[in-house]
C-alpha cells in the first residue's frame, strides 16, 4: 500500500514533467506544424540558467523567473532562426535537422561552460520530504502537479479567453484565414515557441531541485515528452496532459512491479502498441485527407 502511494506520488510528479514538456510540443506543433526537436534543452536551460544566476548572486526568487524567461527567449530565437526558414513548404523536415543541430550546440556549450557535473539547484521545498507512512514526497515534487494544473488552466484561459490566445488558435486552424483578419501569423508562431519555452523551462526549473541541474538532464525527458505528445494525438492539449501524467505513473508501476532496468523498453513498447492501435493518437481526431 505504501509502495502504491509512493508510485502514485512520484509518478504524478514525473508525469507532470512529461505532461508539461508534452504541452510545450503541443503548443509548438499547433502553431507551426513543426517543433523544436531538441526541446529537452530548453527544459535543461530552465534549471541550468537558474543555477548560473544563483552563482552570480541573484536571489532565488529573481533567478527562477529570470531563468525561465531567458530559456523561453532562447526557444523563441530557435523558432525564428532555425524553424521558420526550414518550414516553408508543407511536410518540410528541414526543421527537424536544424533544431537537432542547434540542440547539439546548446547542450555541448553548456557542458563546456557549466561543466558536465550535476549541480544542486537549492530550493527550500526540496529539503524535507513529507512522509506518509513509509512513502514520502518532497513538497517541491508536489509543486509539479500543482504547476501543471495551473499551466493547464493558464493555457486554457489564454487560448479561450484572451485575444492573442484566440489568435493563436486561429493560426493553428488556418494561417491564411488568420492573416486575413489581420493576425501576423509569424509573430504568433514566435510567441507560441516562447510560450512552449516557458512551459519547458518551468518544468526544468521545478524538477531541478530534486534531480539536480546538468547539461544532459533534458535529453531523455525531451524525447519522452515528444513521444507522449504524439501518442496523445499531438493536436489535443487535454490528451497530452492526461497521457503525460499517465505515462509517468505507468513508469513508476513498471519500475515497482516489472523491472527497473527494462522500464523504457516496456514503456516505449507500450507506446508503440498504442500508436498502432490508435493511429491518430489516443485523443486525436481522424483527419480527413483531401484529394
Amino acid at each position, binding site marked *: 500500500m505504501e509502495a502504491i502511494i509512493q*508510485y502514485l506520488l512520484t509518478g504524478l510528479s514525473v508525469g507532470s514533467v512529461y505532461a508539461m514538456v508534452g504541452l510545450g510540443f503541443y503548443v509548438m506543433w499547433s502553431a507551426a506544424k513543426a517543433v523544436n526537436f531538441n526541446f529537452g534543452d530548453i527544459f535543461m536551460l530552465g534549471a541550468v540558467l537558474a543555477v548560473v544566476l544563483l552563482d552570480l548572486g541573484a536571489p532565488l526568487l529573481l533567478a527562477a523567473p529570470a531563468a525561465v524567461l531567458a530559456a523561453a527567449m532562447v526557444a523563441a530565437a530557435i523558432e525564428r532562426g532555425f524553424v521558420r526558414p526550414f518550414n516553408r513548404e508543407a511536410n518540410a523536415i528541414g526543421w527537424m535537422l536544424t533544431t537537432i543541430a542547434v540542440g547539439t550546440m546548446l547542450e555541448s556549450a553548456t*557542458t563546456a561552460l557549466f561543466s558536465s557535473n550535476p*549541480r544542486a539547484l537549492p530550493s527550500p521545498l526540496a529539503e524535507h*520530504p513529507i512522509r506518509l507512512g513509509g512513502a514520502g514526497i518532497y513538497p517541491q515534487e508536489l509543486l509539479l502537479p500543482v504547476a501543471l494544473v495551473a499551466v493547464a488552466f493558464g493555457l486554457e484561459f489564454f487560448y479561450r479567453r484572451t485575444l492573442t490566445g484566440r489568435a493563436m488558435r486561429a493560426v493553428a486552424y488556418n494561417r491564411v484565414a488568420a492573416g486575413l483578419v489581420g493576425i501576423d501569423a509569424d509573430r504568433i508562431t514566435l510567441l507560441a515557441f516562447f510560450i512552449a519555452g516557458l512551459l519547458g523551462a518551468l518544468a526544468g526549473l521545478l524538477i531541478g531541485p530534486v534531480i539536480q541541474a546538468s547539461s544532459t538532464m533534458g535529453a531523455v525527458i525531451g524525447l519522452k515528452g515528444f513521444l507522449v505528445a504524439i501518442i496523445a494525438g499531438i493536436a489535443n492539449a487535454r490528451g497530452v496532459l492526461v497521457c503525460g501524467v499517465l505515462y509517468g505513473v505507468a513508469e513508476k508501476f513498471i519500475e*515497482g512491479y516489472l523491472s527497473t532496468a527494462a522500464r523504457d523498453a516496456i514503456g516505449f513498447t507500450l507506446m508503440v502498441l498504442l500508436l498502432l492501435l490508435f493511429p491518430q493518437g489516443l485523443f486525436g481526431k481522424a483527419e480527413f485527407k483531401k484529394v
Partner: protein
Amino acid sequence: MGRRVRDCGRRAGLGGLLALAAIFSALSPAKAQRAEPCIGASWEVTGPLANQGLMLRIAVETALEKINAAGGVLGRPLRLVVYDDVGEPARAVDNARRIGERDNCVVMFGGARTPNAIALREPLEEMGMPWIGPISAGTTVIEHQNGRNQWMFRVSMKDRWVTGYLVDQAKQRSASGRIAFVYEGTAWGQGALPDVEAAARRAGVTLAGRETFNIGDQDMSAQMIRLRDAGVDTIILWAVDRESANMVRSMDRIGWKPKIVSAWGVTTAFARAIGPLADGIMVAGTFNWNGQLSPEAQAAFDAMKAKYPDRIRSTADLEQPSAMANAWDAVHIIVEALKLAGAYDRTKLRDAMFRVNYTGLVADYRPAFIRDNQERMDAVLAEHYKLQAFHNGMLLPIEATPYGMRN
C-alpha cells in the same frame, strides 16, 4: 538535358573523390618506426562524463609540465595528445589507431568505460602499444578471458578487489547482515555484479537484494522500497555522481537511511549536488587529497593549482581525487619505465614496465607490474585501497570522520 544531368553527376562524383583525397592528404604519414615522445589519451572530453576527462587531463598535464621542466625524459619533452571517445567503443578504437599509427605515441591512456577498454584489446596487440588505465576499474579490462594480456596496464582500482574490500566493509558495518548491491546499468556496474556475488560468497554473505538503474534515471524509489522492505541495512553501491544523488534523494523521500559503502564513482560533485544527505556515505578510493598530504602530494596539488587557477582552488576541486592521483602516478611510472627502456620504443617500454619500482602518491609500487601475471598488470593493490567518507560536504579519509569504526 540528359547530358547535363550526367555532367553534374560527374562533378559530384569528382567532389566525392576530392573529399576523400583531402582526408588522406590531411593525414601526414607516420614514417618513424621508433615512437614519438607523446602520451596519447582516449577518454571523455564531451558528454555527461566530460568532467572526468578534464580532471585526468589536469593531473597528466601538470605532471608532464613538471617532468619537462626538469629536462624531460631521455632528453626530450613528453607531451599529451587527447582524443574524445564520447564513451563509444568504436571511437575509442579510432583514437587508439590514431595515437598508435599517426601520432605514433609511445603509450596511451584510457578512460573510464569498460567496453572501450575491451574494444582496444586487439588493436593494441596488433600495434604493440602499451595502454594504461588510470580510472577504469572493470576487472575484465586487465584480466582477459584468454589470460594473455600483454599490453594493458592499470594504475587504478580493480573491481574484483574492490568488491571484496567493500563486501568486507559492508559486512562489518551491517547490523542485520542484510546487504544489498545497487549498480548502474553499464558495463562497469553489470561487470561488478559477478565480482560482488563471488566476494559475498567468499565472505559468507547472502545478498539480500540486487537492484539496478539506468544512466539518467531520476527516481529510484521503487528499488529503495524493495530493499527497505527486504530489511536491508547496508548498500554496496556502483554508481556515479548524478544517479547516486538521485538515489540518495529517493531514500530520503521514503525516510530510509541505510549505510552505503560505494565504489569510487561518487566524488566531490556528488556531495556538492546533494548537500548534507551525502554525509556518512563511505567510498573506497586510492587516495584522498583532503587528509594529511605528503610533501610530494602537496607539491602535486600546488602545481595543479598553479597551472589551472580557474579550476583548482582547493583540494575539494580535485573532483576525481583517486583517479587524479592514479594518473599522476601512472605518468611517473611511464617515465621511470622509459628511463629503464632507454629509448622511445613501445616494446622496450612495455618490457621495462615490469621493472619499474617507484614510490608514488597512491602506493609504493614495488614492482609496479609483474610479467606473465595478468592479475598483476594492476599496479594498485587491494591493500592500497583507502576508505573515505563524506562529512560536511567533503570527502575525507575515514579516520578524519566520525564514521570510522575500522581503519
